[in-house]
């Protein structure tokens, strides 16, 4: 009697438990907390930019190439714009593009990955082929070529980054979806006559939530970095204020050759901080869901240090 009871209760627990412990694990994980704190600060700065620095950030407010002072905390550019205002306003475009690119590429990745895994056979072959071709085409040159042919603008930047960025997430999500596809509960859902869409999005997708999250974070990091790179090459929308464009202008105006490091440092550090924070969260997700990577507390374990 007790055994049957156990058998009945374990499945429901097994479904719920990982979810709760996942969030709990994230909150009690130092890496995740640090990463989230940094992200909250940047998102707050981006939202508050028009309040903190009202007006157009690229207007000329002071003498050119001033060193950091109490009046201009981060100095001014060679044109005489306030670097701090440019940096704070730049976070808006950079975070927006990063987030949009991340969401869009992850979404395409989910669609392709799920369809591949669920339908299998010919559809899987075809989709995998397309994915692998996109993975293999050299990303940066393709980015440059596409950006050169398309009319410049924020939409182009986003489109180009999604086109070059979705394949990686599709491959990761497909392999995960494949392993879930072969589980018994999916077979049960098929037999009980559930529709394809329902099985894909209600049965398979929730079970790969952590991988989806990891992919999303990686895609956002990619989006922010690639946007900056594209804009640094002068292929973005030069009229907007973003971290990449700030660096483009810094390079264009020879900020480093004249020694104005303060024009050049802030935007780069901001990109790095955001990317690092997202990477921290990503590693935390990995650690929480993959026990093998967790910090070992007792070095005596099966580890080789003991064997030595």
């Amino acid at each position: 009697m007790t055994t049957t009871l156990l058998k009945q209760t374990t499945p429901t627990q097994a479904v719920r438990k990982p979810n709760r412990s996942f969030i709990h694990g994230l909150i009690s994980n130092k890496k995740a907390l640090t990463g989230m704190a940094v992200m909250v600060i940047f998102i707050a700065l981006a939202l508050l930019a028009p309040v903190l620095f009202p007006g157009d950030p690229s207007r000329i407010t002071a003498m050119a190439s001033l060193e950091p002072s109490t009046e201009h905390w981060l100095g001014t550019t060679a044109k005489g714009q306030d670097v701090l205002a440019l940096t704070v306003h730049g976070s808006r475009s950079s975070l927006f593009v990063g987030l949009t690119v991340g969401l869009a590429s992850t979404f395409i990745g989910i669609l392709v990955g799920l369809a591949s895994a669920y339908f299998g056979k010919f559809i899987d072959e075809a989709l995998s082929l397309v994915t692998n071709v996109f993975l293999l085409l050299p990303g940066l040159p393709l980015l440059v070529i596409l950006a050169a042919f398309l009319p410049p603008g924020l939409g182009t930047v986003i489109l180009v980054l999604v086109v070059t960025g979705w394949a990686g997430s599709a491959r990761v999500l497909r392999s995960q979806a494949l392993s879930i596809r072969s589980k018994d509960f999916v077979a049960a859902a098929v037999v009980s006559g559930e529709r394809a869409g329902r099985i894909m999005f209600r049965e398979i997708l929730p079970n790969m939530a952590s991988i989806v999250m990891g992919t999303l974070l990686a895609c956002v990091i990619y989006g922010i970095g690639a946007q900056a790179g594209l804009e640094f090459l002068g292929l973005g929308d030069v009229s907007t204020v973003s971290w990449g464009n700030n660096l483009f202008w810094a390079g264009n105006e020879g900020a480093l050759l004249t020694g104005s490091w303060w024009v050049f440092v802030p935007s780069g550090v901001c990109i790095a901080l955001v990317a690092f924070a997202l990477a921290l969260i990503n590693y935390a997700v990995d650690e929480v869901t993959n026990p093998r990577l967790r910090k070992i507390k007792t070095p005596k374990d099966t580890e080789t240090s003991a064997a030595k």
Partner: protein
Amino acid sequence: MRFILRRLGFYLIAFWASITLNFLLPRFMPGDPVSRMFARSQDRMQPEQIEALRKLLGVDDRPIWEQYIDYMHNIFTGQMGVSISRFPTPVTEVISSQIGWTLLLGGTALVIAAVVGNLLGILAAWRRGGAIDSALPPVLVFIGSFPYFWLAMGALYLFGVVLGWFPIRHAFTDGLEPAFTWEFIGDVGAHLVLPALTIVLVSIGGWMLGMRNTMIATNSEDYITMAEAKGLRPGRIMLRYAARNAMLPSVTSFGMGLGFVVGGALLTEVVFAYPGVGYQLLNAVQGLDYPLMQGLFLTITAAVLLANFLVDILYVRLDPRVRSN
């Protein structure tokens, strides 16, 4: 053998896809970029050359499939047209004069990063929680989060402008005649240090973490315990038993890394004005030099595909599982 043929078929499809992409882009993009280009360079070119370029780029009244067949024919016979920004040099000539520099820069950086990164990963996984394992990954990940060109510019400023240790632009000192003399090779080496170093710095973290994570999984395998029980020296277990088996994913990443070599060195080459294909690609884009742009993209793609194919062949030799299907 079947594996190899399958891969070869895949690479051919990928190559066909990139050719087709190249064919379609100038023909279906809004804003008619090709006409813009002709408007800019009309007076510098002969009428018959303009006619040939029109055909290449699709400003042409013939039906699209006829253009397509023509285009394929031209690609496979190596006719990629004439560069506009370096008129009248043929595109193939411009590319062949530059691809060597890219391979030198990218190859050096890739090999250094892969070797050092994998070694660090092996050591980190072997001594879990040790100095290398706990201190290095966060530092490398942090460095890796900086935009690549930003680090390159920082290094250029610090070591090139402020300290003056290394030359800041080009692949060798202007005016020096390329030759196999020690002077020239040393000069090329000195120009290589900063660009290669920045690539190594940002890419080493990925190698190390990838190797570390595979190694950790390998370390818990039974044959490692067995080797320990036999009393083999730890160094031997680490390198010959664990690392050897954990290397396979790194081999695949090496193939992927080659793509980064040819394509990803673009930003480095731009920052250091290094005369490789990436730098030329950006120049072509800025100069609206569409024939050169297309030729460069095709060359880069072909190089990446070829490199990956070679890695696949290597993989078959390394992993018997793919041989037996």
